[in-house]
């Protein structure tokens, strides 16, 4: 119960802060809007579902951007507010606090997908047809969980670092590109494929495309293999995240670097 309470309390607090800051419109509406507009122009002469790459790419951009910045700034934010010592001094494990915040940020990323859907439908007159809505929803939820788990892994590094903003800026675009959110990973050089395939969101977005378009071939493994890969990678991320947090929490207590920024 306590872990769930910590998770839910952190999820809720993160949402409250998100909506308390009017600047949320910039990364969540304006940036994905621009990305989608660019994607629609790029794909206009390509056969197949134009909207598929635009909506899922833009949506993924929003979800990953939110998760990354959310987890990156979750602790920087506490350092700025002077709340980090109070948070650390509670009996709750930091990893559950960050998991709640990361999950909230990933869910908020859905706003982007909805905004983009509205843009392509109303602005460009392109209709997105989902072949199997249930499979799509399952893949979407698992991808959100996977993104949150990835956020937890990165956040443990941010606990030790005073430069979370530099790290988040550096990690934003490589993940969009490597996960195939922007364009198929087949277009990327071969040496980058192991990185792409180690990312849960790569498999998640592939599964979502299978569920959307019955003619989609993608990575070639099929929906259920994709989904299993998302699940396995998520478990691995969570295991790494838990271990890193244990190490990081001990290190900040030993080195007295908690409040430095």
């Amino acid at each position, binding site marked *: *119960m*306590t872990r769930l*309470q*910590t998770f*839910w*309390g*952190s999820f*809720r*607090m993160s949402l*409250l*802060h998100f909506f*308390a*800051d009017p600047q949320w419109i910039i990364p969540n509406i304006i940036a994905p809007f621009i990305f989608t507009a660019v994607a629609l122009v790029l794909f206009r002469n390509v056969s197949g579902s134009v909207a598929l790459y635009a909506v899922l790419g833009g949506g993924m951009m929003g979800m990953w951007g939110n998760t990354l910045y959310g987890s990156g700034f979750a602790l920087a934010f506490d350092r700025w*507010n*002077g*709340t980090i*010592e*109070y*948070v*650390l*001094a*509670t*009996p*709750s494990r930091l990893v559950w*606090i960050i998991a709640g915040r990361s999950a909230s940020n990933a869910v908020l990323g859905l706003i982007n997908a909805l905004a983009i859907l509205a843009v392509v439908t109303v602005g460009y007159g392109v209709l997105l047809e989902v072949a199997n809505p249930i499979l799509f929803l399952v893949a979407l939820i698992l991808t959100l969980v996977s993104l949150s788990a990835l956020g937890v892994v990165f956040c443990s590094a941010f606990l030790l670092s005073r430069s979370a903003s530099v790290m988040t800026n550096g990690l934003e675009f490589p993940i969009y590109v490597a996960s195939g959110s922007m364009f198929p990973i087949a277009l990327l050089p071969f040496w980058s494929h192991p990185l792409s395939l180690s990312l849960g969101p790569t498999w998640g977005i592939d599964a979502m495309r299978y569920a959307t378009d019955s003619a989609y071939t993608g990575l070639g493994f099929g929906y259920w293999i994709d989904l299993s890969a998302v699940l396995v990678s998520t478990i691995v991320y969570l295991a790494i995240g838990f271990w890193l947090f244990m190490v990081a929490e*001990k290190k900040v*207590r*030993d*080195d*007295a670097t*908690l409040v430095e920024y």
Partner: protein
Amino acid sequence: MTARSDKAITVSELRRRYQTSKGILRKKKETVEAVKGISFDVEFGELFGLVGPNGAGKTTTIKMLTTLLTPTSGTARVLGFDIARDVVEIRRRIGIIFGGERGLYYRVSGRENLRYFADLYGVPLAKRDKRINELLDMVGLSDRADSKVESYSRGMKQRLHIAKGLVNDPELIFMDEPTIGLDPQAARDTRAMIKQLVEKEKTVLLTTHYMFEADELCHRIGVISNGEIVALDTPSGLKRFVKDISVIEVEAFGIVDSDIASLRQRPEVKTVSSNLDGERQTVRIQTPKGSEFIPQVTKILSGAKIFDIRTKEPTLEDAYLRLVS
């Protein structure tokens, strides 16, 4: 898990070293010993004060006892639990109230701040909202509970800090300079709340820079200087350190550093302290000579305009100055 003890806090030879570095390209590491093997006990229901100058080791001691820092060596038990090993058990049972503007989420309401920390402390959902309402009532914030914290005055923020520190109904409360930066009325309200906590049989470990505050509130006081406890006694016991002296207090304008240095050089003078309040300076001179030393003081300060000069009984602040100087 239970681990009862007959003392609320037992500290034995506690030590903490920090690694610091100098330079940017050629970093040179240095070790600073902030706490040098201190030992003391705190009884249940006691209000124990830890006083000392900046950098003396008070905050480092509190951070070790609240499990935010691991000690380099030595041991300490809080409510019977070991600070290095039983981290979660200690955190469940203690409250932390630090002074200063920071430490709250400004963009959400006071109630939301309390609710979040109640969740992190695992306060049962059935009790949570009732407890929050009781705390808001206790600190006099019920009518502003749903306003954003950024709209609170400094005193209101400190009252919210106190409510936050009590959200898990702790047995033992650590307060690090809770009245720092508060106006006199807000500081008085905070002190009244601290007294209420002790009346409710809570144990409090308080650090403060204000000696009158320590004198008013604390049952016993540990004076910490340069990482070591140099005295530990009741306020009246500490005052006995200066029972052999009188204090000459001078209120003046235009006293310069060389005047203070001249006073300090006199063999009859134990310590000299100087405070500036606006343009008015207050200088306190500890001397065993009492009023018979006043003519010499007047002579040394002849370049300044003296408004008042008188002898006073030594206070806890005089004892403190004697101990840390």
